[in-house]
C-alpha cells in the first residue's frame, strides 16, 4: 500500500542548548550539559538544576496580548525560525488547509502563578492575566492566530507524550485530506507548579539527571519548544511510524514490566513497516527516575536486543514534559539532517558512567560516536507520560523502503 508521505519539512526549536540548529546540534553531539542552570527560585529551600532557556524570547505581538505568557513566547521563538516556510505554505495551500496541532503539559501556568501571587497581595488577579494563557487550548489558539492558519487548531495534552502525539495527529490530518500542512510540535515552560509537583513526588534529582546510572535519583526539569512544518511532500526527513499505548496501571508510575513502552515501540515499527534491525538509533525517554529506566531498558532490550545505540538527552536540556516528545523528535531530525554519506553522528548518552547492573544491558551511545546507517537511516524516539500514555515515533529520510 502506498501511503501519503509525511515530511517534517521545516523545524524551529529552542531549548537550554540554544535556539539555532547549528548551536543546538553542536552542543547536542558534544553532550554539553552546561545549558543547565542552578535555580533556587522554583522550589522553596532547594537549589536545583533546570534546563531553562536563557536566550531572550520574542515578545507576543500587541494584537495577541491575551496570549502573552512564557509558554507562548517559547513557541513563538520556534515559530519565527520557520516563519518564511509557514508563510509560503499558507500561500501555497490557502489558510483553511493549514492546521495547528501542538502539545503542552503546562501551557501558561507559570503566568497564572504570578497572577495568583498578585491576587494574594491585592485581592485581584494581575490585570494582564487572561485565561487564554492558562487553558491548554491557548497554545494552539495562539499559534493559529499568530500564523493566520484556519485549519483545525487544537492542543493535545497527554503529559510527557503530548509533543510526540501531536506529530502523529498532524500526519493523520494530512492523510485524511483535512489539511495539506500542519504546524505541529510542542511547548512547555518551567514553573513552580511542575517543579514543586515533581518535588512532592520525590522525583527531582538533587544533582543532575543520571539516566541508567546506579546512582540515578530522579529527573531534571527543562523547557522549550520545537515546531515542525508537516506536509505531505516526499523527501527530506519523514515521519515514518507512530506507535501508541495506554497502560491501565497507575496515574504517576509506569508499568514496571515496560509492557506499555514495548507496545508503543512495536506499534511504531509495524506502522513504519520496519524490522527492529532497520533502526539505527533510539532516543530514550530516559528520565533518570528509579521507575522509568528499568522498565524502558527492559522493553528496549526485548524489542531491539542490546546492540542498538541508545541515548537519553535529558541531561542536556532537562525533561521538558509535554514538549519532550517534540524536542527529542527535533534531536532525531538533527541526527538525520546532519548525516554525512552513510554515517550518522549520534547524541551521546550523558551520565556518570556507572551503569546500573540491574538494568537490561542496552548499548548506550559513547562520546563522539557515529554509526554506519546506510543511505536511508531510520531512528526512533520514545515518550512515556503520566497516566500511562505512551507514544513512539520513527523518523527517517525516505517515505518508502
Amino acid at each position: 500500500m502506498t501511503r501519503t508521505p509525511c515530511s517534517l519539512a521545516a523545524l524551529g526549536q529552542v531549548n537550554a542548548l540554544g535556539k539555532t540548529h547549528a548551536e543546538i546540534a553542536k552542543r547536542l553531539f558534544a553532550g554539553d550539559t552546561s545549558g543547565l542552570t542552578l535555580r533556587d527560585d522554583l522550589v522553596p529551600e532547594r537549589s536545583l538544576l533546570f534546563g531553562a532557556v536563557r536566550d531572550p524570547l520574542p515578545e507576543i505581538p500587541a494584537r495577541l496580548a491575551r496570549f502573552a505568557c512564557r509558554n507562548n513566547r517559547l513557541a513563538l521563538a520556534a515559530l519565527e525560525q520557520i516563519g518564511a516556510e509557514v508563510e509560503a505554505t499558507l500561500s501555497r495551500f490557502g489558510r483553511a488547509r493549514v492546521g495547528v496541532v501542538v502539545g503542552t503539559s503546562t501551557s501558561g501556568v507559570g503566568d497564572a502563578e504570578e497572577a495568583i501571587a498578585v491576587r494574594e497581595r491585592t485581592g485581584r488577579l494581575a490585570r494582564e492575566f487572561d485565561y487564554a494563557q492558562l487553558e491548554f487550548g491557548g497554545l494552539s489558539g495562539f499559534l493559529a492566530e499568530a500564523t493566520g492558519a484556519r485549519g483545525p487548531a487544537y492542543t493535545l495534552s497527554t503529559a510527557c507524550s503530548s509533543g510526540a502525539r501531536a506529530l502523529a495527529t498532524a500526519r493523520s490530518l494530512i492523510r485524511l485530506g483535512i489539511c495539506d500542512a500542519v504546524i505541529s510540535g510542542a511547548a512547555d515552560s518551567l514553573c513552580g507548579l511542575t517543579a514543586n509537583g515533581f518535588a512532592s513526588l520525590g522525583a527531582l534529582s538533587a544533582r543532575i539527571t543520571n539516566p541508567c546510572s546506579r546512582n540515578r535519583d530522579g529527573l531534571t526539569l527543562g523547557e522549550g519548544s520545537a515546531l515542525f512544518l508537516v506536509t505531505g511532500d516526499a523527501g527530506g526527513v519523514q515521519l515514518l511510524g507512530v506507535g501508541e499505548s495506554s497502560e491501565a496501571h497507575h496515574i504517576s508510575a509506569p508499568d514496571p514490566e515496560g509492557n506499555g513502552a514495548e507496545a508503543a515501540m512495536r506499534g511504531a515499527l509495524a506502522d513504519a513497516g520496519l524490522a527492529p534491525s532497520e533502526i539505527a538509533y533510539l532516543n530514550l525517554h530516559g528520565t533518570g527516575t528509579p521507575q522509568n529506566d528499568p522498565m524502558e531498558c527492559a522493553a528496549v532490550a526485548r524489542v531491539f536486543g542490546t546492540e542498538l545505540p541508545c541515548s537519553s538527552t535529558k541531561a542536556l536540556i532537562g525533561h521538558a514534559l509535554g514538549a519532550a516528545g517534540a524536542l527529542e523528535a527535533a534531536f532525531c531530525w538533527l541526527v538525520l539532517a546532519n548525516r554525512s554519506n552513510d554515517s550518522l553522528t549520534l547524541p551521546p548518552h550523558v551520565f556518570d558512567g556507572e551503569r546500573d547492573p540491574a538494568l537490561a544491558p542496552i548499548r548506550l551511545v559513547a562520546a563522539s560516536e557515529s554509526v554506519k546507517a546506510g543511505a536511508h537511516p531510520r531512528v526512533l524516539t520514545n515518550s512515556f507520560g503520566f497516566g500511562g500514555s505512551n507514544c513512539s515515533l520513527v523518523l527517517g529520510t525516505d517515505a518508502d523502503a
Partner: protein
Amino acid sequence: MKLSLTNWSAWAPGIETPDAWRAWAREPSPLAKEGAPDGKFLPAMLRRRCTPLTRTMLAAAWGCLDANELPTLRSVFASRHGSINESIGLLENVVRREKLSPATFSHTVHNAQAALFSIAAVNRAASSSLSAQEDTWACAWIEALTFLERDPSAPVLVVIGDVPLAETFAPLVDEPAVPYAFACRLASEGSGPGITLALEDSDQPLPRPAWPHVLEFLRWWLSDEPTLAQGSRGTRYTFRRS
C-alpha cells in the same frame, strides 16, 4: 469522511437517561449549574480518587459502551478546562511556598480522566486528550477521525466534558458554565446513521447556544435538521447527516 455514530450517552444534573435527553432535545432549556454523578459503577477505591469532572466523564463513557468494548476501544478525551479547578489549590500552595500534595498534583494532568478510564476499564488501547478553547467538541471529532485514519477497523470512543470553573477564573471566561459530559462511539463504517464534518474558512461569527456545543450537537442529532454549524475562530465546522 463519513462516520457512523452508533451509541451515545450524556450526563447533566437531572438529565441522566436517553429518554430524559430526548425530552430535553425537544424543548431545550439552560442546564443546572451544579451536580455530579455518584460514580457507583467505579470501584470504591478508584471513585474516591475521582474529581467531579472525572466521575462525570466516566459516567458518560460507561453509559456509552458495553462491557466488551470498554476495555478494548481507543479513546479521545476532550475537555476545555480539564483539571484546572484542582490546579488552583496547587497554585495557591506554590505562591504561599507550601508543600504540594503529590496525589493532587498527579491528578491535574490533562489526561487524568483518560488515565483513570484506562485504569478503571483495564483499557490499554491508544488514547488522546485535547483542549481547543471554544472549539473543543469539533476538534474532538477530528481527533477521532485521526484515530480512524490510523486504524479504520475498530471504532473509537469519544468522551467530552467540563465542570464550571472555580471562582478564581470563572469571571474571565464567557461560556455556559454547567457540569456535563457526552460520550459517543464513532466508527468509520457500520450500520449506524452517518455524519460528515466539513471545514471551511469563515469570518462570520456563529451564534453560540446557551448550553455547551456538544449538547447542541446532541440536540441537533436528535432532531431532523440536516446540518449543524459550529465554530468560534475563523474555522466553521459543519456537521451533516448522510
